[in-house]
C-alpha cells in the first residue's frame, strides 16, 4: 500500500483553479520533486496536502486513510509535516521554543529536541535567541528542525533554498544529507534544478496547476524537464547545466 495517494485533487484560489486533477502515488521512502514555474501550483499543492488550504475536489489518502477533510493540526498528528515557503518561524519566540512547540503533534520517534539540535549544530549557540534575529540559513534550519520535531512520516519541503545565498543553500542541503540517508518520505519543491536532480528519485513537472510530466529522475533528461518547466519547446537544445 502506498504511503500517499492523491486522487483527482483540485484546489482553488477564489474562482481560479490553482491545482487541477492531481493524481500521484508515493511509496514510503520515495523522494518526489515538484518542478514548475512560479504560479504552477506547487506551493498550493503542498499547502493542500498539509491541510492549511482546502481541497475543492478529489481525495488525499495517507497510510490508507482518507485525510481530505482532516484539519491541519490533525494531519500533523497523523504524520504529515510541512516546512512552509518563507520558513514562517514564530519570530516572537526563541529558537528553543520554536522547536519545543512542535511537540504538540504528540508523535514519538527518532526526533526529539536533543537529536534535532544535534542534526543542526549551528543552532546550538542560538537556542535562546529570538527566531527573528537569525540569518536566513539558520532560520531554514530551525524551520526544518521544527517540522522534524513532529516525527513525520511524510515531510514536505517548500523551496528551502528560497532567498538564501549559495553558501547557505549548501549548508541546508548538507544538513539534509543525513535526512536523505534515512528512510523519510519526501516531497520537495525546489527551483534549483541541479539540487532537484541530485536529491530526488522521482520528478513531477507542474504547469498551470496540472502535472504535465512525471518519471524517475534517472530516466528524465534536463531537456525534458526544462521543456515542461517553460511549457514550450525551446528553439535550440539547452546547454547542459553543470
Amino acid at each position: 500500500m502506498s504511503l500517499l495517494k492523491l486522487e483527482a485533487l483540485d484546489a482553488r484560489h477564489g474562482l481560479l483553479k490553482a491545482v487541477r486533477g492531481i493524481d500521484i502515488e508515493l511509496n514510503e521512502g520515495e523522494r518526489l520533486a515538484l518542478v514548475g514555474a512560479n504560479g504552477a501550483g506547487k506551493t498550493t499543492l503542498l499547502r493542500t496536502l498539509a491541510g492549511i488550504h482546502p481541497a475543492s475536489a478529489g481525495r488525499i489518502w495517507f497510510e490508507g486513510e482518507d485525510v481530505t477533510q482532516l484539519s491541519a493540526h490533525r494531519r500533523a498528528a497523523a504524520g504529515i509535516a510541512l516546512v512552509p515557503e518563507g520558513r514562517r518561524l514564530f519570530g516572537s519566540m526563541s529558537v528553543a521554543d520554536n522547536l519545543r512547540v512542535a511537540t504538540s503533534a504528540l508523535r514519538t520517534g527518532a526526533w526529539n529536541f536533543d537529536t534535532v539540535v544535534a542534526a543542526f549544530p549551528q543552532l546550538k549557540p542560538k537556542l535562546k535567541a529570538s527566531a527573528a534575529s537569525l540569518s536566513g540559513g539558520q532560520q531554514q534550519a530551525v524551520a526544518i528542525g521544527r517540522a522534524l520535531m513532529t516525527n513525520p512520516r511524510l515531510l514536505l519541503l517548500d523551496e528551502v533554498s528560497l532567498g538564501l545565498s549559495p553558501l547557505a543553500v549548501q549548508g541546508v542541503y548538507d544538513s539534509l544529507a543525513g535526512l536523505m540517508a534515512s528512510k523519510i518520505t519526501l516531497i520537495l519543491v525546489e527551483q534549483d534544478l541541479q539540487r532537484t536532480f541530485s536529491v530526488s528519485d522521482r520528478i513531477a513537472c507542474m504547469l498551470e496547476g496540472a502535472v504535465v510530466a512525471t518519471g524517475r529522475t534517472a530516466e528524465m533528461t534536463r531537456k525534458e524537464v526544462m521543456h515542461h518547466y517553460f511549457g514550450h519547446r525551446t528553439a535550440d537544445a539547452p546547454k547542459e547545466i553543470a
Partner: protein
Amino acid sequence: MSWLNQIVQGILLGGYYALLACGLSFMFGVMRIINLAHGSLAVVAAYGVLTLADRYELNPFVALALVMPGMALLGWVLQRLMLERSARAGELVPILATFGLAVVLDNTLFSVFGADSRSLAPSIDTLAYDGVELAGFTIGHLSVLTFALSVVLLGGLHLVLAHTAIGRQIRSVADDPATAQLVGVNATAVNAMASAIAMMTVAVAGTFLAMRAAVDPYAGAPQLIFAFEAVMIGGAGSLWGTLAGGIALGVAQSLGAQIHSQGFLIAGHVLFLLVLLGRLLLAGRPLKLALTRSR
C-alpha cells in the same frame, strides 16, 4: 503629605486596573480582538458573586472560586460561538458583535437586578475599610490585597506563557495561527482556552470591583474604558506594561481628584490622550497594541 498619600492610593488603585486590564490585553495579544464587552463581563461576574454571597451567605472569596469555572466556560463558549466567527468575517465585525453583546449584557443585568447599585463591602466586613498607618500613609488592606493579587496573577500568566507547553502553544497561535496548525497546535482550542483564562481574570477583577466600590448594571462601560486606557498607556504587548499603565492611570486619577471634584475621571482621560500624542510624536507610526507578528 496628602499629595504623596494620593500617589500611594493611586499606585494601589493601579493594581485593580492591572487586574481588570490583563484579560483585555491577553485576549488582544492572542486573538487580535478587542472585546468591547470586557467591562460588562466583569460586571456580570460581580453580580454572580454578589448573588451567591447573598443567597447562600457565602464568603465572597468562596463565591469567586465558584464563579470562576462558570466564567471560564462562558469565555470558552463566547470564543467558539461568537468571537471565532466574527474574526473570520473581517476586522470590523468583532467590534460590532462585542458591542452588541455589551448592550445585551448591560440591559439584561438591569432587567434582572434593577437599577440599584450593590456592593460586596458588607460581606467582607472590616476588609473593606481596614488599613494600616505606615509612615503617615493610610494603606487599605483591600487595596494591598488587590495589588498583590494583580502582581501574582500577572506573574502567573507570564510564567505560564514563558515556560509551559500550553504557554508556547498560545504564543505560537498569537504569532501565526496557520503555521501553528502545521506543527500540531489546535488553534481553535488554544483560542478558546485563552478566552477562558481571560474570563477567569475578569471574574477576579469584577469581584474586587464589587468589594472596593459598588456595581450597577451599567458599570461595564467605564470599566472597559479604564482597562483600555491602562493597556494603551502601558504600551504594547507586555503584561507588565499593563501593570505600569494601570499604575499610571491610578496615580493620574488620584491626583486629579485632589485638584477638582470632577478631576478623577478627567485626569485619566487626559493622561491617555497625552500618552497617545506623545507616542505619535515619537514614533510617527500607527500604534500597535499587541505583540508583533512575525512574517
